[in-house]
């Protein structure tokens, strides 16, 4: 019989319990010089008290977070150091042991619960098959119905909202302050983020409408076959939504003529239809066809010819 089980037997039988004398080496301090440890711990506590008191003063005086954090932090740290050192060096370290009792129950107990489940189910529940079936279908239908609020209350169905932007035929290009862009507005090399007029300060739609307008030259630029009229007077417009994961493509490397996405470094060449030259973006940025109206302001010939931004299952490929 191990010592532990002996102890339990003694407890159960109300016998006198085993005792250890204070001289037992198991109860001895873990350091050779307990007095020294005690002194060190006392100092830790003193530092701790000073720290937390200082924090009180610093708080009352509304000092900087630096002082608040340092005083409270060091105060708590030293209190903790003292408590831990007390436990580690001046309290009994044993080693003590505790018996581990097998986790499993007696065989009879296991059988009893299995029997209860199997036999009661077989004898009492399974006989009422019709009831079971009805209850089951009720629960099943409820399970499905319970999903409805999740489906329709949490948000609208995507529909076409992911595909559509507010760019239309004739949309006036404006910057975030609503100023229309005159053909003289940008020097070659200039860049500005534009929106369709009327939507520039709608913080919901700027997320999809955002478009970068770059003045890449002074004469019309053909970025791809079939786009001969899209970039008049050197003005090229691309969707600003990265086709990788939707970050705004916010950097323009003027010398390399690259649009760069800071999120994962996709790079799009502005001269050949924003084809990704580097990085994870899988598709070119869609280009917005532009024209210059009679007053000299930039407008869209039409909306984008394809969905902007990152890919998703319903995104059409034509």
């Amino acid at each position: 019989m191990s010592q532990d089980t002996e102890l339990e037997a003694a407890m159960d039988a109300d016998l006198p319990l085993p005792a250890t004398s204070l001289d037992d080496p198991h109860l001895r301090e873990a350091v050779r010089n307990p007095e020294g440890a005690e002194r060190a711990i006392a100092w830790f506590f003193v530092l701790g008290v000073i720290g937390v008191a200082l924090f009180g003063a610093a708080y009352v005086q509304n000092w900087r977070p630096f002082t608040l954090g340092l005083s409270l932090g060091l105060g708590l740290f030293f209190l903790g150091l003292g408590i831990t050192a007390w436990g580690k060096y001046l309290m009994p370290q044993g080693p003590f042991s505790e018996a581990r009792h097998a986790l499993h129950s007696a065989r009879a107990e296991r059988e009893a619960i299995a029997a209860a489940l199997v036999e009661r189910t077989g004898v009492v529940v399974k006989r009422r098959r019709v009831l079971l079936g009805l209850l089951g279908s009720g629960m099943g239908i409820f399970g499905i119905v319970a999903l409805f609020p999740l489906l329709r209350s949490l948000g609208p169905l995507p529909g076409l909202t992911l595909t559509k932007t507010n760019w239309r035929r004739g949309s006036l290009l404006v910057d975030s302050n609503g100023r229309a862009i005159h053909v003289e507005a940008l020097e070659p090399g200039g860049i500005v983020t534009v929106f369709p007029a009327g939507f520039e300060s709608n913080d919901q739609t700027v997320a999809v409408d955002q478009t970068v307008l770059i003045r890449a030259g002074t004469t019309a630029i053909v970025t791809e076959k079939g786009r001969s009229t899209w970039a008049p007077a050197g003005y090229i417009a691309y969707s600003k939504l990265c086709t990788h994961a939707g970050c705004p493509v916010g950097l323009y490397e003027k010398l390399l003529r690259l649009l760069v996405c800071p999120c994962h470094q996709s790079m799009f060449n502005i001269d050949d239809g924003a084809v990704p030259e580097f990085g994870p973006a899988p598709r070119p940025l869609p280009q917005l066809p532009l024209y210059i109206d009679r007053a000299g302001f930039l407008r869209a010939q039409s909306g984008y010819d394809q969905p902007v931004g990152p890919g998703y299952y319903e995104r059409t490929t034509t």
Partner: protein
Amino acid sequence: MSTAGVRTKREAQAARGRYGRVGQIIGEIDDRLGVAKGGRTFLDKIFPDHWSFMLGEIALYSFIVLIATGIFLTLYYVPSQTLSVYHGSYAPLRGQKVTAAYASTVDLSLSVRAGLLMRQMHHWAADIFIGAIVIHMARIFFTGAFRKPRELNWTIGLTLLVLSLANGFIGYSLPDDLISGTGLRIMYSIILSIPFVGSYLAFWLFGGNYPGTLIIPRLYIVHVLILPAILAGLIGAHLFLLVRQKHTQFPGKGRTEGNVVGSPMYPTFMAKTTGYLFMITGVITVLGGLAQINPIWQFGQYQADKISYAVQPDWYMGWLDGAMRIMPSWEFAGWGHTIPFVVLLPAVVFPGMIFTLCYAWPAIERKFTGDNAIHHLLDRPRDRPKRTAAGAAMIALMFTLLGASATDVLANFFHVSLNEVLWTFRVLVFVVPIVAGLFTWRICLEMQGGGADIGKRKRAVVMTRSATGEYRTVETEAQPDDEHEELPPIPVPVHIEVGAGDTDGEEVGVRTVPR
């Protein structure tokens, strides 16, 4: 006994029994709840003395700090995306349109007394919390503590990790600053990338197309109520199982599958662990005061068409960012549908596989070793070379991916092209884990040859040279604390008897025996 109620102190004590008022109160409680036996067993609960058992405590105590500082933050933070013109105390922001979430976080940082300290403590505690969970998990893994009967606690622990990662990411998003908003944008695209259901999930989560006006209030309630409640419940279950199944322990003198050896809950462990709580809180407080983290007033309000150059998640999200960066730009487009593998594989499928592997590991190992026995004694990592190699490979993979999340920084720093860095990481992500695994496996085999006393404290040796030039070495005498290590374990004594000379006068409840 005197009847007039004038009892001497001693008489009063005698009336209460040997243990005085404490004994009396315990009696009253036990009459009603019957907890004396369980309570005593709990005080005697044994905690193994090994530093690696402290890692879980660090996680637990940083969680406590998270709750305490988080409650403070809720008193000021306003979870709303409503825009208005800023009139608060931070001058550079005045006149700009900001959301209530952003403005309240700026104000709580800059004009609430101790507000910045609390906010930075909260953020540091989150980073430390997740770091501690990961290291704690590594110790469970490498020592085989997850084996039968503790598979359920491995599962609970992993779930704690997953939910904490989620809550950390969500908390990071709450201030609605430029950097956190970009993180949310990427998260939206990640959800969108899931075939068939992605766009529906994204719309339901955000209440519509990105950005909508609902996401911050929704994330808020998830962050401060739903996930913390689940975490607290799971932590409770984790600790309950720990008490029920008792600690594992390393093999050693007097340690068997049938016992646990160490120091008792009361008073030794309680003192040590309370001290740790204070020290960890202290460290987090010092960090919160001294080390600036996430200075959102410098980043500016999130706007869907703006972006910061330094887009960067918290460290525990870096591996996913790295995976997204090195993934080739594959996308399937055809039959009227698009599947962006470039996002789907690194950000959904890959983490799914990693966590599935972790969840399944105990079952996988049981299947390969055919070992279905109960284990309470821990493995030394070197004795399980394959498992240790697998763990090392996993850690290597994670760190390589974390490195890959800094491709641009590395390219700038070493003045090499981004392309070279990218391809280096595409190769490293396969090579490093394999090399690390093989290397670890080899080292384990080598170390198995070493003596059994590796890691034990060695006794000092004194070397002397005699007059004739002869050298002799003698082991020094055993020191009290060496000897201490050698003692055979005993059960926690119920009574401590004090020798007659040890106390001055009589103390209530202490048995005195003549020396």
